[in-house]
């Protein structure tokens, strides 16, 4: 069996499972976010009154942090009251940031657990060897009511990255390349394991970007077998006991794909689908109205550090704005203590509250009809960050910061200071 299958089997009280089997699994960590008051509605509609395991539930007020309309404020109020009534202590209020980064910052993501959040990018937690998957409101309500959820044992695909990434090429470029080659629906219903010699060059932050974006090829979950880099991180952050599963040598994958990244160039996903991927050089000179750095994909301290390295002592181009959204309070504090915030604000960047912000087109950096945005986020669908007639390019933090500096798309390689490369 694969490590993922062993984990699912354990949570379903079984010793063996097979692909396609439906399991009723115990859920170790269930997260609700503030977009989905329907979760509470569904909970009561099913006749539930008491949350099964309040200590395994987290409530994230992240997508509307802080509320920018009366309705958002009302929704957040209902969530807070629900937590207080139900004894849910892990209420992550508007100061905390995007759910996935908060879970990681607090040392709650680790091998051997099932993490389910009402957010499609819950695949991020594969970076820690956890089984993370996103669900809708009613599925989450079922976990609130029963502590369990049905899951189908997925087919598992192995994607291997080989070689040392060249200067200026990040995990974001690699995963965009893979999605561009394989398509936005390549891994629908399936689990994706990332492996290969490239992983030794990827920090936890970069691995999180990789696993996060597996959602954009349709993956149900993603997985990186914990190694020395994972363990160094876990030893520092995680205090709970956990179990690491190993894949049997005779396990047969549904598919195996390999990419050599040794000569990869920086990539962009062009409007308006994530699999519309080209070398950045194809778009050089495209004027940029807004550069945006943030989200559970590309809003970590390392990402902000790359931007600070490019912009320190300089200023963004006239007629361009640069919105930066730290993924979490922890990220924001680190970016401040390292001086990144100072450099970037002096360079003309606009910082907003840690959270999801304009990544999903709700507030804090929306874009107008006819505008072009380059962003470190995860989706460039029509209307994703504002008007449906706006254009969105997805790229690495370096591609975004270099575009902010020049006011147009450029090859970021020459702009990256060596210590960040």
């Amino acid at each position, binding site marked *: 069996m694969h490590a993922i299958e062993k984990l699912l089997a354990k949570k379903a009280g079984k010793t063996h499972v097979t692909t396609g089997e439906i399991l009723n699994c115990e859920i170790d960590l269930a997260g609700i976010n503030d977009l989905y008051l329907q979760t509470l509605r569904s909970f009561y509609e099913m006749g539930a009154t008491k949350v099964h395991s309040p200590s395994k539930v987290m409530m994230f007020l992240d997508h509307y942090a802080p509320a920018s309309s009366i309705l958002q404020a009302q929704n957040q109020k209902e969530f807070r009251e629900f937590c207080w009534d139900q004894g849910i202590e892990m209420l992550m209020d508007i100061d905390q940031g995007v759910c996935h980064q908060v879970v990681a910052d607090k040392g709650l993501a680790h091998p051997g657990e099932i993490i389910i959040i009402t957010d499609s990018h819950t695949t991020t937690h594969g970076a820690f060897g956890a089984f993370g998957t996103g669900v*809708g409101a009613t599925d989450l309500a079922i976990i609130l009511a029963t502590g369990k959820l049905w899951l189908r044992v997925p087919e598992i695909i192995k994607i291997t990255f080989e070689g040392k990434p060249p200067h200026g090429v990040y995990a974001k470029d690699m995963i965009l390349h893979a999605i561009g080659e394989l398509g936005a629906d390549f891994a629908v219903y399936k689990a994706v394991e990332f492996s290969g010699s490239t992983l030794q060059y990827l920090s936890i932050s970069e691995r999180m970007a990789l696993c996060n974006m597996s959602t954009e090829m349709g993956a149900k979950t993603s997985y990186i077998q914990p190694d020395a880099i994972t363990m160094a991180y876990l030893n520092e952050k995680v205090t709970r006991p956990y179990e690491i599963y190993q894949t049997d040598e005779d396990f047969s994958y549904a598919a195996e794909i390999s990419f050599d990244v040794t000569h990869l160039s920086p990539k962009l996903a062009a409007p308006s689908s994530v699999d519309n991927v080209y070398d950045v050089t194809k778009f050089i000179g495209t004027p940029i109205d807004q550069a945006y750095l943030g989200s559970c994909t590309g809003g970590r301290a390392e990402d902000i550090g790359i931007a600070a390295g490019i912009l320190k002592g300089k200023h963004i181009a006239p007629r361009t704005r640069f919105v930066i959204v730290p993924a979490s309070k922890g990220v924001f504090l680190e970016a401040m203590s390292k001086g990144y915030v100072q450099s970037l604000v002096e360079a003309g960047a606009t910082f907003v509250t840690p959270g999801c912000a304009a990544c999903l087109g709700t507030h804090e950096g929306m874009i107008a009809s006819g505008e072009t945005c380059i962003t470190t986020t995860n989706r460039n669908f029509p209307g994703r960050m504002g008007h449906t007639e706006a254009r969105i390019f997805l790229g690495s933090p370096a591609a975004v910061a270099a575009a902010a500096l020049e006011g147009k798309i450029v090859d970021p390689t020459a702009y990256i200071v060596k210590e960040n490369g």
Partner: protein
Amino acid sequence: MKTFIKGRAFVFGNNIDTDQIYPGRFVEYTNVEDVAKYAMFGADPEFVKDVQAGDIIVAGTNFGCGSSREHAAITLKAVGVGAIIAESFARIFYRNAINLGLPLIVAPRILKLIEPGENISLDLSSGIIGNEKGIIKTAEPLSEYVLKILESGGIKPLIREQLLLEQGLHHGA
């Protein structure tokens, strides 16, 4: 559950994401009457005016990709969409729709076989898709587990039953 569904076909392409089905800026609405106003708004703002109860959405691959927002399934059910036939579905949307009791069926390469606006029918139990001329295609059968949820009118009645049973056992003990 109605197993025989008949209606006009509304045809969409590949990768119809949840921002097209229900744009992010309307996600703060939580009452079904409000959510119903913006069905398919990002793909076709006229859809909500044209659609009638029982109409069928036909789409290409990866329908419902993107966000986990249940609003996408809620809005389509609320405007009366009878079923969605697609070449494939994104998994969270698939679960959300089934949980609500909104029938979905997978029919590879269906897109080029159906004209926008034509009257089509779908028999969920056999998977047979037809138009006025006859059978167009047979879709992949629904799994037993999914069929059970649909037949119960969604997952909520099933969980309600399970909770009542557990409470009864608890009180009996």
